[in-house]
């Protein structure tokens, strides 16, 4: 019963974060929202008894993707400053 309640809460939060990532004006907020989606997806994979998929999701979706997105945003900001 408690697992069902927790899974419903996580699914609701993931849907809200997906709408935020699509519709928000600020790009940093959208990237952080996609990181939160990946975090909660990792916890849901642990609930569904798949710890190897959870490790892969945590390392790629929540760390590597966010770092690469911020690197690219930094490049764009620097090229805009030079012009």
């Amino acid at each position, binding site marked *: 019963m*408690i697992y069902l*309640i*927790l899974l419903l*809460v*996580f699914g609701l*939060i993931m849907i*809200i*974060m997906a709408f*935020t990532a699509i519709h928000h004006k*600020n790009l*940093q*907020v959208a990237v*952080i*929202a996609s*990181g*939160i989606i990946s*975090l*909660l997806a*990792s*916890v849901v994979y*642990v*609930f569904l*008894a798949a*710890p190897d998929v*959870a*490790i892969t999701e*945590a*390392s790629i979706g*929540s*760390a590597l993707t*966010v*770092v690469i997105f*911020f*690197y690219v*945003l*930094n490049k764009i900001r620097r090229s805009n400053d030079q012009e």
Partner: protein
Amino acid sequence: MINTLLSVSLLFIALSFILIIIRFLIGTTVADRIIALDVLTVSSIGMLVILARMFDRVIYLDVAVVYGILSFIGVIVMAKYMEKSL
């Protein structure tokens, strides 16, 4: 008895998730949202360790260790981007 106390602990962590998401949605600056991500990470590490006890499998602790190391790098990169010194 022990399982009841751990279930109540899981409910408290779910309530704190909801409060942190409300702060993320109404937060006025970007710094508020990065703090919300940091606190959410630490809470999810606690939740993963409690789940490892309730399912009685030791390999779930490895997910918590990997998550702790990698989210620290993410928060440092976001703060360096805000400070314009990445």
